[in-house]
């Protein structure tokens, strides 16, 4: 409303964020767990005088920096880029409220980056004890950066007392913060093991490969084993509506939640019967399959976490369409378009309800809906008549709990009804929409 709207064709803005965020999450959690894995595995190898294992840690560290420093770091910036384009108003809130938290995270990130570089380039150069210390510095700094970002992420779903007090500490130390931090830490451990299985299964020496693969498998199993308990704790902190959505309230979300559990079980089961019991026989293809299952588990979990936040983008403070809850009355009185800086109807649009309704749709609905693509509104309202549409809009938040209430005047609602009706009318009715194609 305050900022221009970016129409992302076919997939919509939310899906675009997911496409950037899910690979990032999958790599960034490895970046954290992998730090501890490198430090502990190097220590184990040196303690036991295992030169093959030490050589493995060294080659794993190259794989590590190529994935973490490049893909992890750039996609991390990429998420920031994407959310600011898709939802500038919410991004602005997160930036303004948490600027010092971001700044602290940036310091940890800087340490993390330099430590990773010096760790990698220091293999032949540094004393073993100094090298391992730098490995530990990396791991701790990486985890501390998780500590920071996790507080902001959980704030969006479990905003706690912040909407009343506006106290940044209430926002950061919100109800979901601790369980989520522990869950993510456990996921980091599991992912460190999963990635190490890929490089570990490539070690040539049979005996050493057996040791390395089993050691890595233990990380996967240990990480996932604690998730059910932590998960139950986390779910208990969620707002009732979010719990309802994930447990049957919205079938698609429930399916993804089930998928998240199923994929996690497959990963842990697959690790147990494969690399843990038969470490020498495990092929790298198998390790890749486990990693792919891990990616699906991560992806579904993140998807559910995003989905259950509806109808808000920041719980109890800002709706998914970036309208602040406290502005509800103002919008109802003065109208939506009077407050939409960028959707200013031209004179001809004011006279044409369909065109006016399109403006209303862009300003209020497009944060979640496309016209023809993902979560496409044309399909959603197919077969609805004028009265039914109006009734749905009038009681939107009551009929569909995961949607915000319709905000605007009666005239704006009537215009939106006309626009939505026009989407499924015969071809000659709305030439404009034909041009819009898959948006």
């Amino acid at each position: 409303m305050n900022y221009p709207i970016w129409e992302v064709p076919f997939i919509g803005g939310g899906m675009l964020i997911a496409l950037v965020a899910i690979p990032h999450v999958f790599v960034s959690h490895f970046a954290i767990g992998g730090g501890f894995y490198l430090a502990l595995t190097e220590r184990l190898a040196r303690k036991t005088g295992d030169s093959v294992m030490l050589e493995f840690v060294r080659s794993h560290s190259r794989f590590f920096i190529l994935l973490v420093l490049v893909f992890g770091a750039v996609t991390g910036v990429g998420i920031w880029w994407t959310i600011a384009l898709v939802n500038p108003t919410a991004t602005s809130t997160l930036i303004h409220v948490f600027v010092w938290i971001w700044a602290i995270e940036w310091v940890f990130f800087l340490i993390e980056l330099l430590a990773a570089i010096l760790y990698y380039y220091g293999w032949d150069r540094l004393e073993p004890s100094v090298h391992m210390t730098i490995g530990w510095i990396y791991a701790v700094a990486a985890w501390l950066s998780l500590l920071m970002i996790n507080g902001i992420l959980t704030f969006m779903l479990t905003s706690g007392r912040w909407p009343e007090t506006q106290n940044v500490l209430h926002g950061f130390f919100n109800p979901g913060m601790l369980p989520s931090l522990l869950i993510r830490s456990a996921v980091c451990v599991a992912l460190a093991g999963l990635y190490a299985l890929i490089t570990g299964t490539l070690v040539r020496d049979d005996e050493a490969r057996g040791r390395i693969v089993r050691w890595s498998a233990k990380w996967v199993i240990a990480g996932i084993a604690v998730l059910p308990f932590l998960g139950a704790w986390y779910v208990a902190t969620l707002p009732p509506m979010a719990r309802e959505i994930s447990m049957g309230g919205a079938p698609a979300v429930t399916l993804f939640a089930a998928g998240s559990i199923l994929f996690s079980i497959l990963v842990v089961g697959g690790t147990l019967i494969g690399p843990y019991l038969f470490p020498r026989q495990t092929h790298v293809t198998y390790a890749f399959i486990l990693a792919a299952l891990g990616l699906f588990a991560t992806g579904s979990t993140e998807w559910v976490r995003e989905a259950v936040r509806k109808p808000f983008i920041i719980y109890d403070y800002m709706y998914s369409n970036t309208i602040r809850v406290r502005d509800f009355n103002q919008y109802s009185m003065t109208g939506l378009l009077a407050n939409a800086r960028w959707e200013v109807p031209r004179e001809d649009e004011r006279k044409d309800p369909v065109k006016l309704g399109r403006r209303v749709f862009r300003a209020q609905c497009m944060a979640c809906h496309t016209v023809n693509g993902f979560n496409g509104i044309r399909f959603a309202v197919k077969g609805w008549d004028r009265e039914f549409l109006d009734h749905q809009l009038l009681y939107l938040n009551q009929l569909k709990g995961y949607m915000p209430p319709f905000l605007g005047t009666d005239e704006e609602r009537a215009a939106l009804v006309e626009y939505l009706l026009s989407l499924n009318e015969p071809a000659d009715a709305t030439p404009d929409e034909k041009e819009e194609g898959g948006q």
Partner: protein
Amino acid sequence: MPGLPAPDPAGLPAPIWLLKFLSVFTLTLHLVAMNFLVGGTIAMAIMSRRGKTDAVAARVRDTLARALPVTMSLTITLGVAPLLFVQVIYGQAFYASSVLMAWPWLAIIVLLLLAYYGLYACQFRPEWLGKHLNAVAWVSALFILLVGFLFSNNWTLMLTPKNWHTLYENSISGLALNLAERSLVPRYLHFMIGGLAVAGLGMLLLGRSTTRKDAEAGERLTSLGRKWFLAATGVQILVGLWFLFALDAPVRRYFVGGNMIDSSVLGLGILLTLISMVAVRRWPWLAAILTGATVFLMVVVRHRLRQIVLTPLLRVNDLPVNAQWGLFAVFAVVLVVGLCVVLWMVLVFARAGRSTAAADQPEAS
């Protein structure tokens, strides 16, 4: 026509002077790294071609190839902080212009990712790339230059709110650029040529430290760096004038006598540049320090330019402040401790390098 978007109701988390200082200071650090990345990648690409027939050039290429991925990491990481502060201070303008050019702006991420992997390939696997090494180096350089161009587009687009509505209504969603802006090209060139100059200085210093291990490559790099620094800085003065005259007259006036402080900062920057051109042959470290100071002063000028252009619409000095001093103190402590940790790591690494080099010495002789 819509005005500028409303300010965020959360207010500024610290007084504006502190945010401005942090923004200018961290941007200076980012620009120094970015400059070396831009010029260094181009130099590496040139040396990749020459290296096919010239063994010394190939070793110069290797030296640069080893330094560039780390420089890319630093450029990105050091860029995060100024981007954070620009969103805090100028979010109203920044978010709007970014959304207008959403696709090109998002393309930066893809271009960076590809250029970054290209640089790592040039460092780690030159033998794999074989005859394509030269092409990969140039593609990385080109992508980095393109990223700079897209940045220049957004930084100028955010200064021209009067064009936004037309762009929003008339261009395909998220595909606008700011090509009609008169100052776009000189501004972009000003930054990229600055990159060549600073990278020249960086190569000069890198060459001097390489001389101990490889005299020929070190000397080649040193003299190449000096030439680049002098030539690029010479051109830079002309491009700088072009940039200055591409600004609207009322804005330009601030920097040419209309405002004593603004004009003095710009003048001092130019003076330091001229001194560093003289100093570079005998005292390269002095030239480096003076150039660092020049970058800082030019970032101040850049910041003032933005403020002057936006002031009729956006008075950042009047934005409400909702200071979070407690958290700022935590940040300050973390920053100091963090810098100590960084310093310790770099020092032990450098010291270990010297002892490794000393241990290598007798063997080599």
